């Protein structure tokens, strides 16, 4: 009996220290959400400005830029999957990988070969364990991505995309000898609210040119721009930057989602630990009380027995 009480006390102690850890992780994740959201907000002025500039450019420059033109035949598609470096985030990674798998299955159905690009240790582990070839992977910044990280990824992806331009139909690598991709997709988790984060798949390149509302502009027409250097040269420079910006936006969105998912998972773990501590404490008290009761009844029984035997003598 006493042994069982000691065991229970040990389990309570263990649960309590686990609770401390999960609670700390919950608090850290909570503060990271706020930071990540602030970074999303801070990146908006630039992405708005670059969109405005590209809109103005698109009306003046020829739009047969390789990053804008859908290729006549898409043989290979690149898929960038953004996962987290650490686990303990509930279904965060499982969800984004499931969405990526759906996209990959769809692309394969369309007869395209899929090249995988993975961000985050969890995604890398997932694909490596399944012996799936990974074209490129980047890890170590999933919680706090910087633009430099996004640019590194963007440069590699754009290089692969440009290398795909001259690939020949039978699957050969073309004159540059490098197998490239004809399409780029990105799968990341989008932060909807503290409780909801949904994985989404977007096409990165060739870019879908959205017909913009000219009516939004107060004067009704876009200003007649002068360009330094020429509009086409500017487009050459701006489009890769725009793709980097898109990747950066996806990264910080994913970082906010990751923290939100982790906060929720850790909150659930903390609540469970609380519940368990309560149950175990009750169990321990009942066991202790039972052993005390038993000891008393043994003493009383013994005394009674002695008294009874004494009176008989």
């Amino acid at each position, binding site marked *: 009996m006493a042994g069982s009480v000691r065991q229970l006390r040990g389990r309570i102690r263990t649960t309590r220290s686990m609770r401390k850890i999960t609670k700390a992780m919950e608090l850290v994740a909570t503060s990271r959400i706020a930071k990540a959201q602030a970074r999303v907000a801070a990146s908006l002025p630039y992405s708005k*400005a670059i969109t405005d500039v590209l809109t103005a450019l698109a009306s003046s420059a020829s739009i047969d830029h390789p990053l804008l033109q859908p290729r006549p035949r898409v043989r290979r598609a690149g898929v960038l999957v953004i996962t987290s470096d650490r686990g303990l985030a509930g279904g965060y990674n499982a969800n984004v990988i499931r969405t990526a798998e759906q996209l990959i299955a769809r692309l394969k159905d369309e007869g395209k070969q899929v090249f995988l690009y993975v961000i985050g240790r969890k995604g890398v582990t997932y694909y490596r364990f399944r012996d799936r070839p990974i074209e490129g992977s980047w890890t170590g910044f999933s919680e706090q991505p910087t*633009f430099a990280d996004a640019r590194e990824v963007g440069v590699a992806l754009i290089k692969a995309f440009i290398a795909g331009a001259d690939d020949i139909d039978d699957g050969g690598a073309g004159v540059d000898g490098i197998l490239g991709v004809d399409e780029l997709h990105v799968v990341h988790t989008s932060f909807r609210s503290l409780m909801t984060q949904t994985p989404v798949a977007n096409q990165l390149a060739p870019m879908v040119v959205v017909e913009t509302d000219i009516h939004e502009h107060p*004067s009704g027409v876009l200003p007649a721009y002068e360009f330094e*250097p020429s509009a086409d040269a500017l487009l050459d420079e701006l489009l890769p930057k725009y793709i980097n910006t898109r990747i950066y936006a996806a990264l910080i969105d994913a970082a906010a989602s990751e923290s939100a998912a982790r906060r929720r998972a850790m909150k659930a773990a903390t609540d469970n630990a609380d519940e368990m501590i309560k149950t175990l404490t009750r169990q321990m008290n009942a066991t202790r009380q039972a052993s005390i009761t038993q000891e008393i009844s043994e003493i009383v029984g013994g005394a009674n027995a002695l008294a009874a035997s004494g009176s008989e003598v």
Partner: protein
Amino acid sequence: MANLFRVEIVSVESRIWTGEAEMVVARTTEGELAVLAGHAPLLGQLKEPSRVRVRTGDEDLAWDVTGGFLSITEDGVTVLAEHAEPATGEDPAQALVQSPTH
């Protein structure tokens, strides 16, 4: 008092500065230019690296910009930078003269 116009300097990770200015001086790949109120709409790529100077009513500000573009519209001037930080060095104008003109 010169006419003022809106200036916004944004980098990818944050908005660096926004306010009213009398004049903006920047160097595009084609050459240096100064923007006053009422400048014709222009889109330019900034020289790499580049220093952008802004004269507000009462002070001169300067930033060192990499991966920058300059957009002038009737609403004002926007400098888009991959990275921008306050210029280091003594007098921004002096530093500009001393900076290599490659």
